[in-house]
C-alpha cells in the first residue's frame, strides 16, 4: 500500500468493523437466550426428532388398528336408537337433517324413510354398554372396551374419508398414522418393520384399499407400512434362493453395504442409508419372521378362541392372530383392513355375514392380549371411516334396507393402552343423526392416540415444502374423557 495514511484508515476500519461485529453478534446471542429453540434447529431437525423416544411416559407402546373398511353401520352395532324402530318408514324431519349434504346416491331421493335396526340391542357387562346381537363376543368384553359414539368426519365418500382417517388429510400422500408412529417412536424390534399391514375381505359389498393408505408420505421411506401377503408365506421372498446359504448371503450384503456407502459418500442421499438399513433388517427378518408367522403350532384353545379360520391365511381371524403375534414381538403399529362393510342395500343379509367374520376374532384378540398381560400397553382400535344414515337408501320395502354414508356421527371402539375401559363416550340425538354430547373429530382422535403413545401431537412435526406438518395438521384436542 503506497499511502500509509489510507492504510491506517483501512486498518482502523477493519478493526472497527470486527469490533462492531463482535458487539452485534453478542447482542444477537443475548437475544437468542430468550429463544431456546432458535438455534436448536427446531423440532423437525434430524437431531431433535425423532429420537425414537416418547415425549412423556406413554400408556400404550403399540397399536393394533382393526380398520373396518366400507363403514359399518353404527345403528346396527353400537348406537342404539329405538326411536327409529318406532318411526319406521316416516320421513326424516328437516329439522334434524338441517341441510346436511348427502351423497349423490341419495341426494335425489324425495323421501328419507327412517329405519331402525333389524337386529336387537342389549346392555352388557357391569358397564351396561349397548351392543347389538350381531356382536355377541364383543358384547362379552363390554367392560374392557371404550365405545366412542360421537366420532365425526369431514369426508362423505369412502376414499377421502378413509384417507382422512389414516393420514389426517383427505387428499392423500401425507404420512399415515403408522408412519408417524414409526417416525416418532422408532421400531421396538429392530428385526421387524415398525409398521405392518394385513388385508382381508369379507362377504359384504366392498370398497378398495390402496397402498397410499400406508404410505410414508414425505417421511423417510423406512416408515412406510409393509404389506404382508395373504399367502402361506406372509413375507414374500424372505427365504434364501436355492443354492444360496446364509454365509454367502451375509457376504453379499456386506459387499453391497460397502458399495452403497460409496454411493452415499458421493451423493449424500439419506435414502441410500435407508436402503442399507432395510437390507440389514430383511436379513434379520429371515430369522425373526418364521418364528412369528408359523400358525401351524397354535394350540387348540387359541384356534377355538379366534375361530377355525385363523389357520387360513388371508382371513380376518388369521390376521387378528398374526396381529397379536406381531404386536407381541414389538411391532409398533399393526394395521388391518377388513373390506365389505358398505351396505347401501341388503344390509339385513350382509351385515350378519360381516359381523360373523369379525366378532369372534376381534374379541379373541383383546382377550388374548389381556391374558398375556399386554392389553394395558397395547391399544386396539376397531371402526370404519364414517357412519351410515338413519334412513333407507332407496325405497323402504319389506324387511330389507340399506344405508347411505353419514359423516356426522359414527361409532368406533377402543380397548387397552390407557383408554378407560367399560364406558360409552359421546351421544347422538334420538335419531342417531347429530351429535349432542362430546363430539370427537378425526383430528381429536389422532391427537388422543398420539397422546396415549406418549407423543404430543403438536410437537411431532416434520418440515416439508416450507412448512411443518403434523398428523393433526392445525387442529385436534386430546379427548381427556376417555383416558384411563
Amino acid at each position, binding site marked *: 500500500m503506497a499511502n500509509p495514511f489510507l492504510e491506517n484508515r483501512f486498518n482502523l476500519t477493519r478493526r472497527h468493523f470486527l469490533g462492531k461485529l463482535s458487539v452485534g453478534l453478542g447482542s444477537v446471542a443475548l437475544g437468542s437466550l430468550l429463544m431456546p429453540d432458535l438455534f436448536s434447529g427446531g423440532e423437525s431437525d434430524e437431531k431433535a426428532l425423532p*429420537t*425414537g*423416544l*416418547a*415425549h*412423556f*411416559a*406413554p400408556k400404550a407402546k403399540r397399536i393394533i388398528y382393526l380398520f373396518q373398511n366400507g363403514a359399518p353401520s353404527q345403528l346396527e352395532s353400537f348406537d342404539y336408537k329405538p326411536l327409529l324402530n318406532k318411526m319406521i318408514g316416516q320421513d326424516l324431519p328437516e329439522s334434524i337433517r338441517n341441510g346436511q349434504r348427502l351423497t349423490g346416491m341419495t341426494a335425489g331421493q324425495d323421501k328419507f324413510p327412517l329405519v331402525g335396526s333389524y337386529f336387537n340391542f342389549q346392555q352388557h357387562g357391569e358397564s351396561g354398554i349397548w351392543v347389538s346381537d350381531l356382536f355377541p363376543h364383543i358384547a362379552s368384553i363390554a367392560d374392557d372396551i371404550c365405545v366412542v359414539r360421537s366420532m365425526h368426519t369431514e369426508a362423505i365418500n369412502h376414499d377421502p374419508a378413509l384417507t382422512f382417517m389414516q393420514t389426517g388429510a383427505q387428499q392423500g400422500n401425507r404420512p399415515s398414522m403408522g408412519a408417524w408412529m414409526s417416525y416418532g417412536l422408532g421400531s*421396538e*424390534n*429392530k*428385526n421387524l418393520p415398525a409398521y405392518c399391514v394385513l388385508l382381508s375381505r369379507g362377504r359384504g*359389498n*366392498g370398497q378398495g384399499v390402496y397402498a397410499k393408505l400406508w404410505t410414508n408420505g414425505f417421511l423417510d421411506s423406512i416408515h412406510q407400512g409393509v404389506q404382508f401377503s395373504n399367502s402361506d408365506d406372509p413375507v414374500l421372498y424372505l427365504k434364501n434362493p436355492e443354492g444360496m446359504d446364509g454365509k454367502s448371503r451375509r457376504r453379499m450384503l456386506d459387499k453391497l453395504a460397502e458399495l452403497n456407502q460409496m454411493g452415499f459418500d458421493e451423493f449424500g442421499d439419506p435414502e441410500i442409508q435407508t436402503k442399507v438399513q432395510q437390507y*440389514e433388517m430383511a436379513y*434379520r427378518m429371515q*430369522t*425373526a419372521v418364521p*418364528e412369528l408367522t408359523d*400358525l*401351524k403350532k397354535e*394350540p*387348540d*384353545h387359541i384356534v*377355538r*378362541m379366534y*375361530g*377355525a*379360520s385363523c*389357520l*387360513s*391365511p*388371508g*382371513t380376518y*381371524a388369521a390376521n387378528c392372530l398374526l396381529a397379536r403375534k406381531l404386536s*407381541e*414381538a*414389538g411391532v409398533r403399529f399393526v394395521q388391518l383392513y377388513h373390506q365389505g362393510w358398505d351396505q347401501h*342395500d*341388503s344390509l339385513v*343379509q350382509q351385515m350378519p355375514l360381516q359381523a360373523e367374520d369379525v366378532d369372534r376374532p376381534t374379541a*379373541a384378540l383383546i*382377550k*388374548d392380549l*389381556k*391374558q*398375556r*398381560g*399386554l392389553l394395558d400397553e397395547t391399544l386396539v382400535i376397531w371402526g370404519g371411516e364414517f357412519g351410515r344414515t338413519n334412513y333407507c337408501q332407496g*325405497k323402504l*320395502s*319389506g324387511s*330389507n334396507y340399506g344405508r347411505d354414508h353419514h359423516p356426522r356421527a359414527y361409532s368406533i371402539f377402543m380397548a387397552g393402552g390407557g383408554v*378407560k375401559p367399560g*364406558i360409552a363416550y359421546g351421544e347422538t340425538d334420538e335419531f342417531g343423526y347429530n351429535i349432542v354430547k*362430546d363430539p370427537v373429530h378425526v383430528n381429536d382422535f389422532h391427537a388422543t392416540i398420539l397422546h396415549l403413545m*406418549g407423543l404430543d401431537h403438536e410437537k411431532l412435526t416434520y418440515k416439508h415444502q416450507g412448512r411443518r406438518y403434523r398428523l393433526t395438521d392445525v387442529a385436534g*384436542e386430546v379427548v*381427556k*374423557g376417555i383416558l384411563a
Partner: protein
Amino acid sequence: MRLLQKIAPNLLFGLTMLLLFLVIFEENIQLPAFLQVSGRMHPMVLHLPIGLVVALGGSLLLKPAMEAKSFKVLFSGLLTLTTFCTLLTALFGLFLSLEGGYESASLARHKWSGVGMAVAMYLWYLLNERSIPSAKLTQLGLVSIGILMLLAGHWGGELTHGEGYVLGPVRMEEVPAITPETSLYMAAVQPVLEQKCFGCHNTGKSKGQLIMSNPALFMAGGEHGPSLLKGDPDNSLMIQRAHLPLEHEEHMPPEGKLQLSELEIQLLHQWIQSGADFNKPLGAYQEEDSLYLLATQFFELADTENATYAFEPASPALIEKLNTPFRTVNPVAKGSPALAVTIFVRKTYQPSFLQDLLQAKEQIVSLNLTDLPIQDKDMQILAAFPNLEKLILNGTDIQGKNLNLLSANEKLASLSLSNTSLASDALESLAKIPSLRELFVWSAGIAEEDIQRWKDKLSGVLVHEGYFPDKSEILKLNPPRLVNKNNMLAEGEGIDYVHKFPGVELRYTTDGTDPDSLTSPVYTETIYPDQFTLLKIRAFSEGWQGSDVLEKSFFLEGISPTSARLIYPTHSTYPGKGAISLIDGQKADPDQFRVPNWLGYKETDFAAYLYFEEEVPEIKQVTLSYGRNVGAYIMPPTKVTVWGGDNERNMEKLGSIKTGKIDSYVSNVTAGIPIDIPKGKYACYKVVAETLKVLPEWHRGAGTPAWIFIDEVLFY
C-alpha cells in the same frame, strides 16, 4: 422564553399548593366529569416525568462539553418541565384514586410516594432557582427523586397488575399438584378467574367494589349486588356480563382485556349451575358428571404412575452399548432415567443378553422376555433389578422353582407368566412379593382350581387366568380356499382347494345342491370338469360344525370364434366392449357391474352372430356365460336358443334350453348355460337369450323388467 420564566414559578407554585390542598381535603372532593377524564389520563401522563428524570441525569453528561451558561439554561429548563409534569401526574393520579375501586393500603403507599415525589421535585426546582446550582444539590436531587420515582412507580404497578407482579416469574412458587383431593374450584375454575378476572377484582384493586380472589367476598359481590346466584347461572351477574356484546359498556372482561373463551364461560356456567361449590374435591364427582368432564379440559391430574424416579440415569454410552438388533433398551420417555428392555428372537438368544443388563440394573423398570429360553436358574439374575416394576416371562422355559427369588424385587407390580409350564405350587412364593398388583397365569400349566385357591391367598393381587375354551361349544369351520386365480380353465388345468385346519374333510357337489358330510364326494385331488361346472364345496371335521358353502363357476377354454356381431344393441349403460366381449375369454364378476366385460340388456333380448371365418371346427356344445345378482335386478336369461348355418340367411335351430325360475335372493354368481347341439361344422352361429320381462311378486322390483348380463359365448 422570558414569558415562560415569568409564568413558571407561579404555575408550579400554584400546582403544588393545589396538590397539597387536595390531598389534605381529599374526603370532601366532588369530582366533576372533566376531571375524571384527566384522572384517567394518569396512566399515560405518568410516563413523562419518568423520561424527563432520566433526561435530567443524562444532561449532566453534556456539562463538560457546553458553555456554563448554555448548560444552565438547558438544565433549569429541563428541571422546570420535569417539575411541571410530575405535579400534573400526581394531580391526575389523585383524581383517578377518587373514582374508587382500589384497596386502601397499597393505594396509600402509591399516593404518598407520588405526592412526595412531586413535592420533592418542586423543592429541588425552588432551590435550583434561588441559589447558585451546586453539584451537591444536583446529586442529592437526582438520587432522592430517583428513589421516590422507583417506589411510586413500583407501587403503582402493583395497583394495576396485582401484588408481586414484577417478581412473579422468578419467585419460586410450588404449584401444588392436582390430585383427586384438590377441589374442582381450585383445579379448574380459579385458574380461569385468576387469568381473566382477578387482575381488577382482587383485594388490592376492587373495581366495582368486587373482590373475586376471596371466596367469601366473591360470593358477597360488589356494588351491583352478588356476582353469582348458586344454581342459577342465567341470572348470575357475572355470566350475564360475560354474555353481553363486547362493545357493551358493562361487558366483562372489559373490551381490550383478555376475554373469556366459549369453553371458559361454559365452565363458569356449569359450575354455578351445580351450586358454585368452592370445596368439593375432584374425587367426589361422578366421572360422567358434565361439570367434571368440562373441568378436565382445564387441568392435568398429577400422574401418580409417572412418579419421578430417585435413581440417576444410565450413561448414554451404556444405553447405546446395550442396544443390539436383538435387544432394545430405551428410556421410557425423553428425559426419564427409567429404562424399558425387551429381548427378541428365541433362536438367537444367548444368556449374555440378560447378564449384560446388570450393568444398568438400577435403571431397568420393565423387562420383556417373551418366548425366550429363560430358565429357573435365571431368576437369580432377575432378582438383581431393584427397581423392576413389570416383568414378562410369557412363553419362557421356566417351571417356577425359583420364583420366590423375585421377592427381592421390591417394586415389582406386574408379573406375566402366561404360556408356561409351571409347577402347581409355583404361585406359593409369589405371596411374598408385597408390591405385586397384577399376575397373569393364563395357560401356565396350573389347574383352574389351583388358580382359584391362589387367588384367595394372593390378596390385593389381580390374578388373570384368561380364557378357557368351552369344549362343548360347537364352532363352525371356515370354508376351504380356492387355489385357482381364474375360473376359466385352460386345457389340462384342474381345480384345487386348500384348507389349513388339521384333519379337515372337504366335500363337494356339481349338481347345484349343497354338499353334506355323508353322501357328497370327498375332495382328495384336483378336479377336472368336462364342461361348465358350478362347484359347491364345504369343510367338515369331527366336533365342528360344517363350513358355509363355497360356490364357484368354472368354464373350460373353448374354441374361439373369429368374430362376433350383436343383433340388438345393449342397454346404453352397459355396452361392454361391444361384441368382442363375447369372445375375448375375459370373465366378469357379478358384483362389479361396471367392468367392461358385461353386456347388459333390459326389455330387449340378447342376440348375436358368431363367425368361424377361417377353419370351421366341429362343435358339439355352446355355453352362454351370464351374471346373476338378484338383489341388483340381474336375473338369468329365461330361454337360450342356438342356431347354426353357413351364413346369416341360411340357419337352422340347433338347440334350446329354458332355465328354472328363481324364487329368492340367491347368491351372486357368474354361471353358464351349456346347450348340447348335434355335432356339426357351421361357419355362423346365432345365440339368442331372452330377458325376464317382469320381475316376480316377491322381488322388491316386482312388476318392472329384469336385466340380463352376458360376458361370453363359448364353443366346444
